[in-house]
């Protein structure tokens, strides 16, 4: 009997699903080797199909997206019970991702902004004797591993095809990786950057520039040109796709295993290379970075040491 696998999405954009489809023929060989028992975006299975399965009968569930509401929590708890292995697929599941930036707000301020003075949806509503319910919207976004036990992580926004292939092979191989492993190389992106050799020995940056402010030279280290490139703090494995597209790294592969808090380390890396020592010039240089949380915690606020804005 073929091993069973499942895919599910929580607070995400659908890009991780797209990444699975982008596997092209590889996906067909996965479908040959394994039976897909649940995949809401592509196949018509229902929740009851999952409920009918015995506990532990799914070999692996690949779950993308952060946890934002009670429906997502229920589904991932259900999948956890049915699965031997749970993979946090993509950076939203791993560390909160873009949806995690909502932790700069809370339910009250988000609802006030979205619904203004209009009709605010209620969790339950009765109509002609039928009760309709909506999931509860949580006050903060959480990472998958804050809600259920996670066995492996596949980073990326979204994970790249080579990373997915390597991860699937690692899971199907004879030796399973140690629990908790991030299935990507444990080194910094700078290590595999095609512009590595142009990075100066002593890197100093006079001013930081944002991507809409200049067109960088296509050969030279982006950080050396003043772009806020987070490659030095980010895990490798993406084959430097953004760099090859002449865009700086924004950190979607998360940190290496030595780092507890990605944003703190990324901030440290960028601040250290600023070529300014006077207090007034430091202030001026840092003015070019108007949104430190959005820059350094773009994909990881819910996993940070301070995981959300302090409540007033």
């Amino acid at each position: 009997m073929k091993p069973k696998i499942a895919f599910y999405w929580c607070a995400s954009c659908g890009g991780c699903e797209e990444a699975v489809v982008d596997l092209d023929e590889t996906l067909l060989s996965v479908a040959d080797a394994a039976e897909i028992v649940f995949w809401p975006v592509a196949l018509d299975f229902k929740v009851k199909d999952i409920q009918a399965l015995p506990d532990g009968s799914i070999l692996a569930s690949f779950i993308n997206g952060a946890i934002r509401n009670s429906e997502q929590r229920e589904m991932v708890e259900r999948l956890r019970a049915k699965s031997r292995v749970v993979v946090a697929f993509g950076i939203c599941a791993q560390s909160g991702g873009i949806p995690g930036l909502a932790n700069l707000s809370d339910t009250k301020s988000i609802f006030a902004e979205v619904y203004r003075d209009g009709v605010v949806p209620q969790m339950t509503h009765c109509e002609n004797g039928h009760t309709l319910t909506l999931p509860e919207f949580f006050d903060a976004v959480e990472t998958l591993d804050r809600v259920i036990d996670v066995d492996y992580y596949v980073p990326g926004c979204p994970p790249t095809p080579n990373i997915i292939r390597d991860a699937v092979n690692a899971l199907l191989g004879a030796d399973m990786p140690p629990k908790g492993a991030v299935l990507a190389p444990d080194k910094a992106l700078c290590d595999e950057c095609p512009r590595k050799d142009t990075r100066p020995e002593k890197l100093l940056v006079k001013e930081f520039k944002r991507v809409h402010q200049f067109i960088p030279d296509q050969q030279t280290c982006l950080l050396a040109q003043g772009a806020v490139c987070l490659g030095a703090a980010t895990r490798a494995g993406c084959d430097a796709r953004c760099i090859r597209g002449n865009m700086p790294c924004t950190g979607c592969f998360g940190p290496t295993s030595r780092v507890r808090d990605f944003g703190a380390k990324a901030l440290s890396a960028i601040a250290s290379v600023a070529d300014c020592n006077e207090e007034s010039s430091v202030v001026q240089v840092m003015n070019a970075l108007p949104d430190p949380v959005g820059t350094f915690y773009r994909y990881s606020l819910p996993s940070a040491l301070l995981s959300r804005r302090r409540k007033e």
Partner: protein
Amino acid sequence: MNDAFEPKIVAFFCNWCTYLAADLAGTSRLKYAPNVRAVRVMCSGRVDPQFVLEAFAQGADGVLIGGCHPGDCHYQEGNYKALRRYELLRRLLNQLGIENDRFRLEWISAAEGERVKAVVNDMVEKVRALGPLVPHKREEVA
């Protein structure tokens, strides 16, 4: 806030200047607020932003970094690195709702025991006025 509130301040003092100044304050029998928990680091440049976030996450109401005056760093430019990180981290903390008075960087040389006293007392009073920092306590979701 209330009379019972005593701010907890975590202070990272560099080995060569500010820690010696704190020592001097002690041997000179200067009295300053006992709210500071001093952590000796070799250089203010050694203060990883993770240390600061960890301190706040673990219940510090304020974090103070003390280093050598500009130009005096034992390692040439560690204090400049501290300054750059401080400025960016201060802005990031603002976005997370942590006020400027809770996070401070001061240059204090080994001779300035008086200054340790003045800075610590001033910071404790400012943080006392702000009240306790209650970071988001993560309730177990699972």
